[in-house]
């Protein structure tokens, strides 16, 4: 790999079957900001096969360079093959920072790669900072998000981190100005240590949780499956997606994919209304900067009242129907 590349901050742009994961682009936006502060360029890194159009797309998000490791043997994700390719590129070009999404793929790839490179990795970051000396400080949740730690990697390079999807916003596409650099892939069939036989994907429902502008979420306080309809009716009149804490999912009132929080989805709606939710950090860490957080809870001392803008104290079975009625009166007036 003789070509000289200038980027010291690299972002792994995850793709599966030609579909890019949004988190890669979200991190690019943050990386550009970090790059400005230390005067470094930013590269997107694509690994897979037939990547021409994807690499064009990545360039349209303002990256300076896109590194493309394109090889038919890399069509399906296999961590050891991907680790080998990335290890070779990192050794050749020595980036200071390498960021990946904390997705199923990113959380599998990053630790193996970091171990191969004998460098540090901070996992599931919810924020990134650079010190004046250019050292990366990652904010990572521990103890279910009840405590945050700032983690650094003082002695080894690159500094590797996985970033939670949804914590940084998607940058706007701009005019492409960067260049493509192809990464040599010295991959052999023996590097593929497992073979993908099936990939099953449910389409993320349109208007799903992650993209919804308005989310109505219900908690354990809703009490029964029958009463879960209060949550659904309120969501309906507000044209909102329905979210849940863990207990309603465990009870089967809501589906697994509706769970918001540390082990569920990260959401960034404009409006969030939490009904019968006490406000455990496990749940709240999934909520990113909504303009308005409203909580309805019978307990005036519920922790969620320390984390919301508007509090309604009382029985949701009295408040929610009145709320629905009033909202309906507005929509019929229009």
């Amino acid at each position, binding site marked *: 790999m003789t070509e000289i590349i200038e980027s010291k901050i690299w972002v792994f742009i995850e793709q599966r079957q030609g579909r890019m994961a949004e988190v890669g682009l979200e991190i690019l936006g943050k990386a550009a900001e970090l790059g400005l502060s230390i005067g470094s360029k930013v590269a997107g890194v694509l690994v897979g096969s037939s990547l021409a159009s994807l690499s064009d797309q990545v360039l349209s998000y303002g990256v300076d360079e896109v590194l493309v490791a394109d090889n038919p043997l890399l069509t399906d994700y296999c*961590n050891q093959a991907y680790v080998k390719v990335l290890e070779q590129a990192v050794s050749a070009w020595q980036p200071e920072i390498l960021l990946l999404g904390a997705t*199923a793929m990113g*959380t599998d790839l990053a*630790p*193996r790669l*970091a*171990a191969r490179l*004998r460098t*540090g990795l901070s*996992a*599931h970051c919810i924020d990134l900072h650079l010190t004046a000396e250019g050292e990366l400080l990652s904010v*990572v*949740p521990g*103890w279910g998000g009840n*405590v*945050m*730690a*700032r983690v*650094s*990697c*003082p002695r080894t390079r690159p500094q590797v981190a996985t970033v939670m999807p949804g914590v940084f916003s998607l940058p706007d596409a701009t005019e492409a100005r960067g260049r493509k650099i192809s990464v040599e892939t010295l991959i052999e069939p023996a590097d593929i*240590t*497992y*073979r*993908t*036989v099936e*990939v*099953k*994907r*449910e*389409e*993320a429902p349109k208007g799903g949780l992650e993209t919804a502008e*308005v989310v109505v979420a219900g908690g354990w306080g809703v009490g029964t499956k029958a009463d879960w309809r209060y949550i659904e009716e309120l969501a309906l009149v*507000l044209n909102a997606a329905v979210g849940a804490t863990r207990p309603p999912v465990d009870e089967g009132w809501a589906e697994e*994919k509706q769970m918001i929080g*540390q082990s569920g989805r990260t959401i960034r709606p404009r*409006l969030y209304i939490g009904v019968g939710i006490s406000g455990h*950090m496990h749940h709240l*860490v999934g909520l990113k900067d909504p*303009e308005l*957080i*409203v*909580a309805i809870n019978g307990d*005036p001392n519920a922790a969620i*009242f*320390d*984390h*919301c*803008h*508007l*509090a*309604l104290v*009382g*029985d949701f079975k*009295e408040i929610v129907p*009145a*709320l629905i009625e*009033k909202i309906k009166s*507005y*929509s019929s007036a229009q």
Partner: protein
Amino acid sequence: MRTIVCIKPVPDSKHWNRLALDPKTKTLVRKGIPGTINPLDRNALELALSLRDEHGGEVLVVSMAPPDAISVLNEALAMGADRAILLSDMAFAGGDTLATAYVLSAGIEKLGQFDLVVCGDQTIDGGTAQVSAQVAEFLDVPNLMHVTAVDVTPAASWLVRSHIEHGYVVVEIKPPMVLSVLKEINEPRYVTLMNILEAEKKETQIWSSSDLELKEPWLGLNGSPTCMVDLFVPEKKGRAEILQGGPREQAAELADRLHRSGFC
């Protein structure tokens, strides 16, 4: 089939309300909080035990932890593991995931040949989800994470399903391998009093650094490339504005505000 399960003793989350951040040292005070098997490690152990029930062989558990973790390993023996090994030494203290994975892999190597190493995908305290892949890297065997089903086929390779965003992938993979599992994979078995009594007869060994072949600079704090700068409790947004009146008044006030902000 020979399976090795990695187990981490963690403070029981039922008692986390007693966790406190020492404002001076910025460290977590967890005095007196009882230890237990990390929840997902129970699922890992259950997978190992059910494979043994079906295909025969043995199940060994390994943990790197301070000496008092023996009681937690006894829980694993009571669930049905055949033998437990605790890797414990002052030299291991302060290790991050890389240093931990290094010691665990050295312990596993000393145990000899295996078909499978199983871990829980992540722990409830640190939650990094890094150890299994790093153990696999040190052992130089393939690994899969986020595993939700394992199908041991008569052919040389197994079919393993792992979770991805909005779906799953199934891969064909040959042992020896390292797998880390999610909660969905199974329901860990209960332990009876009989099991506990039986467990007392089983063997637990403690290995220190001198029992293992280890490179000194890769251990503990020195062998840890990451460093915790500080700990903090996430900021509260401050108390909310509380809407006044009975349920109907509060609802009307909220609807009115939502209307003014264009939400309805």
